[in-house]
């Protein structure tokens, strides 16, 4: 006697239920890894497991310094794009001279951290997931355990510290690159000098605006790192599995950045 296959509604409900549980489990794993990272960062030396400054520097180079060219280039392009669109729109009202206010505000509070976060998620978040996934499949994580080296302390904490330091620094650099490119375009188009452009930007922006952007970028750095680690550590199924978790880590990190950004903007601006 054959069983009747479940109908579409049951299958969909089952699927949604499983994915919800997986999501909750991953959030729990992420929280655990953050807690363990904080523990090893401060308590590691007491257990003979200090976080090596050298490892943090290596991660800072990987996640930050080597990413500078592409980040600066793309943020400059976005700065020019914003300038073109803003001038086009403000021309309708004959207010193109006010373009500086909008550009400065939007880049420093929003586009700088968001675009930097998204680019780092694609570059560093994916490499972190792929690296950890490959290490898990190759039993390198087991090897660390047996050698008495805590993998969270050895692999995750340096990456996390590097991200917390480098993402805000890169965001600031990208803000400057974006504003500089936008300023050059405005100089060519509206004949407003670069000095005047930057003077206006400084006038219109407060320290709070800058901190809003940089504060968000710290959070984005933590999200990118933890999502990469959780996905990398959960890999199954060999090389194909590594590919899957890498893609998943990038998609999740970008989604998390955009949604967190929206939430922070709402809290900081509206409420």
């Amino acid at each position, binding site marked *: 006697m054959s069983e009747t296959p479940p109908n579409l509604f049951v299958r969909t409900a089952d699927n949604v239920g499983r994915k919800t549980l997986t999501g909750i*489990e991953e959030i729990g*794993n992420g929280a655990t890894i953050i807690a363990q990272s904080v523990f090893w960062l401060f308590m590691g030396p007491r257990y*003979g*497991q200090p976080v090596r400054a050298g490892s943090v520097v290596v991660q800072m180079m990987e996640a930050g310094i080597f990413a500078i060219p592409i980040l600066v280039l793309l943020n400059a392009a976005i700065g020019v794009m914003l300038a073109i669109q803003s001038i086009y729109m403000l021309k309708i009202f004959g207010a193109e001279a006010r373009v500086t206010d909008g550009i400065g505000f939007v880049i420093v509070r929003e586009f700088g951290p968001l675009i930097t976060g998204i680019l780092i998620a694609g570059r560093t978040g994916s490499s972190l997931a792929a690296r950890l996934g490959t290490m898990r499949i*190759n*039993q390198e994580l*087991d090897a660390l355990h047996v050698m*008495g080296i805590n993998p*969270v302390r050895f692999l995750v904490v340096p990456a996390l510290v590097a991200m917390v330091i480098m993402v805000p620094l890169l965001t600031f650099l990208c803000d400057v690159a974006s504003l500089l490119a936008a300023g050059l375009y405005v100089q060519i188009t509206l004949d407003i000098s670069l000095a005047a452009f930057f003077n206006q930007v400084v006038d219109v922006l407060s320290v709070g605006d800058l901190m809003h952007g940089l504060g968000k970028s710290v959070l984005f750095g933590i999200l990118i790192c933890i999502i990469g680690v959780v996905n990398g*550590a959960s890999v199954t199924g060999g090389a194909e599995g590594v590919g899957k978790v890498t893609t998943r880590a990038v998609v999740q990190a970008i989604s998390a950045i955009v949604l967190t950004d929206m939430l922070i903007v709402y809290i900081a601006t509206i409420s």
Partner: protein
Amino acid sequence: MADEIKSVIEVRDLVTHYGPRQILNGITMEVREGEIMVIMGGSGSGKSTLLRHLMALEEKTSGTMTILGQNIDELNMREMFDLRKKLGVAFQSGALFSSMTVGENVMLPLFEHTKLDRMTMDIMTRMKLEVVELGEFENLMPAELSGGMIKRAAFARACVMDPKILFCDEPSAGLDPAVASALDDLILRLRDALGMSIVVVTHELDSAFKIADRMTVLDRGDILFIGTPEEIRNSPNERIQKILNREPDSDDVDIDVYLRRLTGEDMYGGAEL
């Protein structure tokens, strides 16, 4: 009065599950000081799971396990780290860190666990690489090594802290007979030179009989036999003779394990690092 034989590992009634499935059904065994203990068995017999337990990498369901006189259930985190410094492992894949050179891989335990100066660590690393005949390959990356060289480098890393117990997971798997035989010789040499106890999991009969002082034969999560190679050769047990004669046994196909491999289902539990 004869010298008392000391055990470095004692396992009593070890039971373990993966999900609802019981993998080990109450294993009791010991590994004696200075001996090479080979764990054998067919696919799905539980030998790799037992090895992971002996290395304290898995949570057991019940039973007790003592490593170097310490009950691992009673150890706190610091004591566990200290215990692990006395263990070495050479995994089947080698598990060398791909971002480090061979020399850096071998040096890693020294760098992490000792306060030796760099020059001393360099000398110790070179010595261990010489023992495994990889002295000239210190600066190569793992990707530049052959399969046999990767395994030898893994041995060098496993031995760099002069562990009391060395674990080897399928050391000769996937190697041609000449290289496999050379690795067997290396295991014997390491035991004689460094006086460590060695636990080897393998399904290669020739290799097992060449290196073993004693052998544990596992079958479907139970111990079929523990004894010297000679005792196992002379055992009247039908299943042991089947294993020794390499006779296929339809019951050896473990559907659960096979399906888990096919589907890539995680055997090692969650996303824990």
